[in-house]
């Protein structure tokens, strides 16, 4: 006879062996403080069999409890002297529950089941109670809930992203994506349309360092071919690319600050020596020319 009433869908789900034991105690109408170990053990084992028969997975914890119950039962049956503690190895004493330990555990566990039930009531009562978890952005008079931020935070973040892009190994695989020739054709057409290109903007739109370098090589190539001129008003100013001898660019740049004129004739690209006149601030050259590119200097 099963203590668990099939069919399956009414089978209580036990949270653990203690839960099952509590259930059995109640079903058997025992007092928790006066458990009949042999009866409860039999019921417990039967319950496990039922669970197995229903193909419910019986967790190890349930089996441990079964062993514990059998152990307690055994010690109760055995003559008193045989169950004295000398018979049990020291390290196992903690593991073996006495009837009293078991009762204590059951009482404690039942206490928390009761507290759970109270919490459950509270939970249901409060299920529709919602707190705002985000301040409204549209608080009139308080335009932004986010305090003023230092732009350097953003700049540092993007620098890190930029460095990470540069060092991502995938780019060695994708080295064919950008070619100097393509960039050269692109830049030439844009310059020929009479545009002044902002080099910084150009680089910012690049998806990675490789593209920056490709653009840079194309710019050097165009400079060498005397198709473009590059100018910057001073440190930290924008760098512009314009058609060769674009007077407008030069005058505007020269008005604001004298620019350095440096020759970069010793730079090697594509194995050729080039000696274009490039209008560059010397700091800028340091900035743009990585050791690899300036390797020959």
């Amino acid at each position, binding site marked *: 006879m099963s203590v668990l009433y099939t069919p399956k869908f009414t089978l209580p789900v036990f949270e653990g062996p203690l*839960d099952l034991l509590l259930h059995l105690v109640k079903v058997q109408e025992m007092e928790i403080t006066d458990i009949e170990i042999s009866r409860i053990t039999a019921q417990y084992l039967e319950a496990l069999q039922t669970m197995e028969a229903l193909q419910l997975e019986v967790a190890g*914890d349930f089996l441990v409890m079964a062993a514990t119950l059998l152990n307690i039962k055994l010690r109760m049956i055995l003559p008193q002297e045989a169950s004295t503690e000398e018979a049990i190895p020291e390290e196992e004493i903690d593991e073996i529950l006495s009837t009293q330990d078991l009762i204590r555990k059951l009482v404690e566990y039942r206490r928390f089941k*009761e507290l759970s039930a109270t919490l*459950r009531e509270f939970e249901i009562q409060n299920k*529709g109670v919602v707190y705002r978890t985000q301040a409204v952005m549209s608080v009139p008079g308080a335009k932004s809930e986010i305090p003023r931020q230092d732009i350097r935070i953003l700049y540092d973040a993007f620098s890190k992203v930029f460095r990470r892009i540069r060092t991502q190994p995938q780019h060695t695989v994708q080295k064919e994506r950008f070619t100097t020739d393509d960039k050269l054709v692109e830049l030439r057409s844009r310059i020929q349309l009479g545009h002044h290109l902002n080099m910084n903007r150009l680089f910012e739109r690049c998806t990675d360092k490789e593209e920056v370098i490709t653009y840079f090589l194309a710019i050097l190539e165009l400079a060498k071919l005397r198709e473009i001129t590059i100018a910057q008003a001073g440190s930290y100013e924008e760098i512009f690319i314009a058609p060769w001898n674009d007077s407008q660019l030069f005058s505007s740049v020269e008005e604001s600050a004298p620019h350095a004129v440096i020759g970069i004739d010793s730079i090697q690209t594509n194995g050729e020596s080039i000696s274009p006149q490039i209008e560059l601030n010397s700091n800028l050259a340091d900035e743009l020319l990585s050791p690899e590119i300036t390797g020959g200097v």
Partner: protein
Amino acid sequence: MEELNPQPEELVPGDSPEETADGALPQPLPEELEPVLEALLFTTTSPLSLKRLSELTGGLEEAEILGALNGLRTQYAHSQRGLMLSEVSGGYQLATKPDYADWILALLKHRRKNPLSPALIETLSIVAYKQPIVKAEIEAIRGVDTGAVLRTLMEAGLIEVVGTKEVPGRPSLYGTTEVFLKTFGLRNLEELPSLGQMKELFQRELRKPATSEEISDTGATK
């Protein structure tokens, strides 16, 4: 989900002693006090204590604030209001009335709609009652492995690591959070049924043996 204002524990009301109002914050006029408090309790994402509300109103007397809060409570009691003044987690905050759960939960797609599972609520009650507590102690009480359950409770923000126990292995100590108090509508942990109340519950159970079966049914059926 990434949040703008994570870690409610950093926003525990009255917990920012170094941050007194810079400059003199004007005191609201008496007739302004209720609306100002309503606006503050609407905006905050974490309950505001009386002390904090006093700071935020240019140092008004707490008694005066309490009076205005009662005024607000009365306004909200009106049936045409969908909000209420909630006294929770050591402070005050506006919240929706429980009556409109159906519609609110339809809006909050990501919010958990079903009650916590028996395993979750059982573990939560142990943590609530015994905090700070380590995993092994919880498992000793429950008699089963509790790792996954603890992780779920952490993810739900209901419990958090509050320290480490100074024993070999330095296991984490768990405690309940502000979200826990809000979920169960508790002003503080003292509002949990005390041991005394628990005894009453036991006695009720002894008189009415069906009770605890009903309870396990709640968790188990459907």
